[in-house]
């Protein structure tokens, strides 16, 4: 092949190629060199380079995909967090409202209890007072009856004549057979 090329070069040197100032020999050698270099590069440089580039590309792609996935995950997580936060806020509001209601109920129950107790205490006091009054009244009655009978006894002892006594006895005797 090389010989053919040289022949061609010689043939053309005598043709119009010299007009372009082109040295075919050196061009041929350069071309061959270029082809050799190209082959070397293609055989020993390009594959690893391609491989490396491919690996890098794949890595980059993976990274991009992962980044995208991460972004999506982050977005979802943010969305979930937002939802959870919202729900928590709602729950918190509900709990606060319930707690307020319960507190109001407890307060009103306590008020009612206090009123009921106060009324009960008042009633008990009234009952006790009435009992004390009744007791005093009874004691007074007994005391009075005692005084009256004592006085009556004394008066009758001194004032009851024998005639009156006989009349009393006679009336009692007549009542015997009834």
């Amino acid at each position: 092949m090389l010989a053919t090329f040289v022949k061609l070069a010689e043939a053309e040197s005598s043709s119009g190629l010299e007009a372009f100032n082109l040295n075919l020999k050196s061009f041929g050698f350069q071309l061959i060199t270029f082809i050799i270099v190209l082959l070397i590069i293609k055989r020993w440089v390009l594959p690893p380079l391609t491989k490396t580039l491919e690996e890098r590309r794949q890595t980059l792609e993976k990274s991009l995909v992962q980044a995208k996935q991460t972004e999506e995950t982050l977005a979802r997580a943010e969305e979930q967090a937002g939802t959870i936060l919202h729900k928590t806020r709602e729950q918190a509001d509900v709990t606060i409202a319930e707690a307020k209601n319960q507190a109001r109920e407890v307060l009103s129950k306590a008020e009612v209890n206090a009123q009921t107790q106060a009324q009960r205490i008042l009633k008990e006091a009234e009952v006790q007072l009435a009992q004390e009054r009744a007791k005093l009244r009874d004691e007074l009655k007994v005391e009075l009856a005692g005084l009256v009978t004592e006085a009556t006894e004394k008066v009758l002892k001194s004032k009851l004549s024998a005639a009156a006594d006989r009349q009393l006895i006679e009336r009692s005797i007549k009542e015997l057979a009834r």
Partner: protein
Amino acid sequence: MNLSISRRQLADYIIEHLVKGRPRHQLSKSVAAALIATKNKNQTDLLMEDVAHELENRGLLAHAKVTTATQLTDNLRRQLKHQLKKAVGVKNVILEEEIDESVIGGIRIETANHTWDKTIARRLADIKGGVR
């Protein structure tokens, strides 16, 4: 010999013999002997009470203890005996009078089976007790 006679039986015995008209000293001896034999010498008073009860129950005699603040007149005694015979249901009445000024006025009559307290002291006590 271990004799066992109840007071009730003895009282019945006394009454029956009194009704029959048995002499009192003979009856007394028999009763005394019975009391000694049954070792009831201390129960003479109780026996007499039993006799009084039984006499009243049989309608024979009522022994009435009468308490007043002043002496009874004969008229009152007569009335009292008459009314007691009807009230107790006996043929005869014996009065045992007692003067007690603490009754103030009125009359209290106690027989073996009946009591009537129509004294002023009792009425005043009833008023006091009724108020309590």
